[in-house]
């Protein structure tokens, strides 16, 4: 199964249309999508505008490959589960986001072992074929922040109490 998510804030029909086209030529592969706001209809995918967190997690965990906009929620969830994820960044010039920060995010995240970045529908189709052709594309997952960040946060949280107790 392939699960696609484009967040729930802004439409991203360019990705959904590309994936629906791919799905039309791969009827043997189940494709589910959390579409967010959209005016499009996607005949070859099972679509929901907005899944609750529990349903979202279930679909995410069941998927072989995730297809997503370059949103950190999708990227971090994929890294947590070690899932391969195909990212297509939103472009401000095409009215897909307020700015082009997803291009930066995608460029930075491309170095992660489970991340593949594509820029258009044609690339998306070929990258998806390639990923599905691999026997086992999962990598080791992690669900928490770096030890450095955790330690710094603990200092901040608990030092504040120590200071107040003294003061």
């Amino acid at each position, binding site marked *: 199964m392939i699960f696609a998510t484009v*967040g*729930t*804030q802004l439409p991203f029909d360019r990705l959904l249309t590309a994936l629906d086209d791919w799905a039309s030529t791969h009827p043997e592969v189940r494709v589910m999508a959390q579409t967010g706001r959209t005016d499009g209809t996607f005949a070859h995918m099972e679509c929901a505008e907005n899944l*609750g*967190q*529990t349903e979202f997690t279930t679909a995410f965990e069941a998927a072989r490959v995730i297809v997503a906009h370059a*949103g*950190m*929620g*999708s*990227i*971090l*969830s994929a*890294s947590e589960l070690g899932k391969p994820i195909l990212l297509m960044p939103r472009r401000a010039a095409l009215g897909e986001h*307020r700015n082009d*920060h*997803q291009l*930066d*995010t995608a*460029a*930075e995240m491309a170095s*992660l072992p489970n991340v593949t970045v594509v820029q258009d529908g044609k690339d998306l189709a070929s990258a998806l074929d390639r990923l599905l052709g691999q026997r086992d594309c999962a990598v080791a997952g*992690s*669900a*928490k*922040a*770096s*030890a*450095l*960040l*955790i*330690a*710094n*946060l*603990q200092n*901040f*949280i*608990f030092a*504040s*109490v120590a200071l*107040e*107790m003294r003061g």
Partner: protein
Amino acid sequence: MIFQRTPRNTPRILAVASGGGHWVQLLRLREAFAGAEVHYATVDPSAAAVVRPAPVHVYPDANKETKVKLALAAFRLLMIVLKVRPDVVISTGAAGGFFAIRFARLIGARTLFVDSIANARHLSVTAQMCRGVADRVVSQWPDVARQSGAEFWGSVL
């Protein structure tokens, strides 16, 4: 000062994030909250199932383009801050985190804004607004921290 809260042995944290990536990043910080009492504030009521039994307070999702909702979110976060009376406020964004931090300063809480890891080139607008308001503003990218004057404390990855 009537708003001043009493210091506690176990710090009370108000952890604030809107939906999507902001919320996922907040969840990755949870290990650091062990030993504290944690309240969450977010935009999606279904998030409660994820952090149960911690209390979850919900505010409207809003951004710069939805001014009325933004005002409602600010008001709701003021109510949440006054009700929870946190010792520490930590937010991974977005706009709601700024409001929570702004109001929490009124009751003397210590406040931290962790800019999203999505902001790999520049601090977000919200993080820039938090500078001078939050006690600490941190970027998850050393280069961004260096060029913006924010701090680097590590990242969620």
